[in-house]
């Protein structure tokens, strides 16, 4: 019984090995922040095993913190896209190493308008990352 418990539960938190999990932990429940978590294909039309997003408005400290986390998490990952403005990455798509059967993606974007909205998304899917991204863009 104990063994079943210890084995089954860790599988629920595959992203905890990533630095970006700290972003969700530290900023997720603050004012001015929207955090979403959806599991098991709850988002209609998308085959996501896990979808986690956080949107933070006008918080340069958070933006810097996210960039530092991404710098660590990109070790071993493939950078699908990066946009740099004034020497600072404002948009990054990372294709992470697979976790078992799951493909993993991190999407980061910082808007350069007055609102300076930061969006960070973590996705796990049984589908290939390229297909996932094309689907996201198709439905935009």
């Amino acid at each position, binding site marked *: *019984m104990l063994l079943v418990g210890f084995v089954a539960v860790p599988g629920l938190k595959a992203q905890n090995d990533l630095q970006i999990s700290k972003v969700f932990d530290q900023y997720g429940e603050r*004012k001015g922040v929207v*955090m*979403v978590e959806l599991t098991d294909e709850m988002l209609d039309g998308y085959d996501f095993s896990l979808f986690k997003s956080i*949107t933070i408005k006008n918080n340069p400290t958070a933006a810097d913190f996210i960039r530092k986390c991404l710098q660590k998490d990109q070790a071993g990952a493939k950078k*699908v*896209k990066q946009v740099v403005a004034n020497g600072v990455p404002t948009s990054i798509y990372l294709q992470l190493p697979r976790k078992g059967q799951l493909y993993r993606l991190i999407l980061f974007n910082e808007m350069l308008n007055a609102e300076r909205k930061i969006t960070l998304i973590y996705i796990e899917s049984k589908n290939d990352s390229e297909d996932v991204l*094309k689907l996201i*863009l198709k439905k935009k």
Partner: protein
Amino acid sequence: MRIKINNRISNNEADSLIEKYYEGLTTGDEERELKAFLSRRDLPDKYKPEQAILGYFDRKAPKKHVSLLPYIRWASVAAVVVLGLFSIQRFTADNKANYAFIDGHKVSNMHTIKSQALASLVDVSSSTNEVEEGFKSLNENESIEQQLDVFSSTEK
């Protein structure tokens, strides 16, 4: 007439009582007499079966009967507790998924949660071309690395 020496019954009397015992006709007093007879150490071997049946064959200290029932009971309780804790954790983990926090307030309305999720996807989306270019570049880089590996292995 029953002959009792030192209040002990004779072998013949014991035989009669044993026969009566098997027929279920012995009185309480007769059974006590029979048990007292069978508890003697100097009895012939022919009485061994009766001694075994009536529990007087072995005069050693009674074996301690180790009952597993308390241990089984405790193990069952422990198993139920563990299962309960596991179920609670699993249930709360499942409940924690499919949620949103907006300005620090938890939202469980699925429509709102999905809307927020879709909105965040729009925020990060760039054009399809940029993504295709990105993957194309990744694939090209992999091909180049594979080609370079061929040269590095031949140099050795």
